[in-house]
């Protein structure tokens, strides 16, 4: 079986390019806090008031350009597996970033968000970058979770924090950008602990000679 290595060679390599780093980002939070909507707003610039979540939101990619580097997010949605507390460990594997979402109009979802943060600290890579998003900030009139309370919690736990609105787009790009800035851009992130496959681990694809690195494709 002749190995076809041309797949890798065809990639333009010589020209000075900005480095592209790929990161796995997982979304967590109770049902109906707007996880999928945040991603849809970020990736597609869209918002649908009553749209049921679709398959697409379960696995989307979007890039963020920083000064010298392009960060490509591979965004994983829970696909509903969180509803009966049945998220699989593979969901957290190798995740370098997470957004834990709650609904500012629902105190309960904030309590649950804290549990998700704990779960991440238990299951995910120790170096994971976690952002807390208080979503539905457009519904401030019905606010049940105070900004200061969430901010204090985030500070205590070393989390990025913003109040967001998928509906108005407020802070949506910003929170992804903040995460992109905080992610280590050296070699494949993560490493050690429960996450970060690191060099040598590979995805399978059609090509006969897939590239090895999970970062910087």
């Amino acid at each position, binding site marked *: 079986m002749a190995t076809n290595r041309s797949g890798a060679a065809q990639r333009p390599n010589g020209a000075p390019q900005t480095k592209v780093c790929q990161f796995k980002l997982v979304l967590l939070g109770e049902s*109906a806090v*707007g996880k999928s909507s945040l991603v849809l707003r970020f990736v597609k610039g869209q918002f649908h*008031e009553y749209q049921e*979540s679709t398959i697409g939101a379960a696995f989307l990619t979007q890039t963020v350009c920083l000064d010298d580097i392009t960060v490509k997010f591979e965004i994983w949605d829970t696909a509903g597996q969180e509803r009966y*507390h049945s998220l699989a460990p593979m969901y957290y*594997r190798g995740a370098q970033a997470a957004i834990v979402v709650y609904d500012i109009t629902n105190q309960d979802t904030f309590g649950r968000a804290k549990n998700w943060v704990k779960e991440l600290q238990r299951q995910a890579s120790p170096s994971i970058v976690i952002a807390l998003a208080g979503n539905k900030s457009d519904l401030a009139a019905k606010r049940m979770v105070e900004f200061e309370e969430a901010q204090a919690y985030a500070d205590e736990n070393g989390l990025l924090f913003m109040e967001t609105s998928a509906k108005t787009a407020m802070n949506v790009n910003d929170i992804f950008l903040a995460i992109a800035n905080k992610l280590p851009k050296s070699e494949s992130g993560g490493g050690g602990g429960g996450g970060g496959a690191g060099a040598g681990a590979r995805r399978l*694809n059609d090509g006969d000679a897939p590239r090895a690195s999970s970062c910087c494709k």
Partner: protein
Amino acid sequence: MDDDLPTDFQVIVVGTGMVESIVAAACSRIGKNVLHLDSSDHYGGLWASYNFDGLQKFIKEVNSDPKRQQQVYNLSEKWYIEKETPQEEKKEEGQDKTEDSKAEPPKKVWSQANFTSEYRKFNIDMTPKLLFSRGPLVELLISSNIARYAEFRCVTRVLTWLNDRLMPVPCSRADVFATEAVSIVEKRMLMKMLTSIVGYNEEEMNNEFKDWNDKTFKEYLTHKGLTPNLIHYVLYAIAGGTDKMPCLEGVKECKKFLMSLGRYGNTPFLWPMYGSGELPQCFCRLCAVFGGVYCLNRPIDKVETKTVDEGKTMVTIESKSKTLNCDHLVIGINECPKELLSPEPAESCDISKAIFITNGTILPSEKEPLSLLRFPPLTEEDNAVTVLEVGPATGSCPKGLFVVYFITNKVKDAESDLMPYAEKIFDMSGGDQTVTSDKPKCLWSLFYNAADGGGAGSGAASGADGVFVCAGPDSGLDFDRAVSQAEEIFKQICPGEEFLPRAPDPEEIVFEDDVTHGPEFRREDDDADGDAPKE
């Protein structure tokens, strides 16, 4: 908590083992409404991987519950190290010894307490399996686009036990020519034979070997004039056989091995990051993405089938005093109430397995190795033993350790069947870990026996209409059997439908309002913005 669980589904799958998970994904993918349950708090069933703490719980549970010993039994765990490290003295001693002689840090002295504190860094498989690079599971993962959920590492070398020591097996053309273990004449001989085996199609193969039907592969290799060393490589290491292996089976195994060479890495094999137990979860995720509902910790108490109008069957399940209805029930053998299993006991040879945790690799190499070792039988009665050694880079264990899996067909019991092989490659004495010897020290071991899900009578058996019982793990190296059983069951549930067509990539998904997503894109998920009602 899960009382708002909907009650009516087209397909209910109970158990998250490999076969069940593939069926769940396949049904959900083509638009069936799927509920997937598991009685335990984790994914994988008999195919699960555990961290060290989870494994301890698993051992305790099985040993204290005879009902759970139908599938896994004879569990025997043993430590070869102290409970606590006598820290002060040991550390100082270690430093004293090494300060002049070597730059290498002293070998870590592991204690049971270290395992406990680093329990999360272990991912230990109850059903470790490799994937042939062109085997049916790899092809399915790629064609269904489920491959994007998992990462793999290439097995870096294939080893065998020859002349009472470990020997790397030259398995690619380059290897064959590079190796010094075989002469030039032998190399030509070997290449000629391997090339012809790869070249045969099914028909040619049957033709070429029609006179060999009742003869062994070994007789064929001898007839071809291969030297004893070459016969050893081909028969034991490449074909994974024994002296009794029938000729055609040997040829087919060789072909499978050779066909998978050169796709990824130097050997034909892949190992999933974090262990084989990740793979059922990947299929579960696809099922969820297409709307499948997931609920762990949900044991079922009773299954009843009743015929409704026009001979159509409905299956009802009692679970936590809730009644769930479906057209088709797919259930793992480990979750299955006795009355649903076919009454005749499956005549099959069970499997003997062992897991060892060691403080080094069985054969040092430059980079961290990932090894498949195939032991020929040491005695007449024994079967061949398959050994997989995985290290920290696979996410299986903390740095400095290796997890080694042994698998063979059962003769007596796991410990008697496998201990003689373990002693060949490990130091089982439990002595001082800082002493360097030619063999790694075994720090911990677990022997157990398992029913062979590949045995006779455990096909896509169904005790009742609309009920499909999935077999447990088989003794095969790859997941061939699980994939084919899952496909069989799927075809019975969804005749005429495509088995796991390719899921779209993110770039291909359109979100415009006026686009109809089609049934397979619809999800019953209230995870949208707004106050979606709970069912």
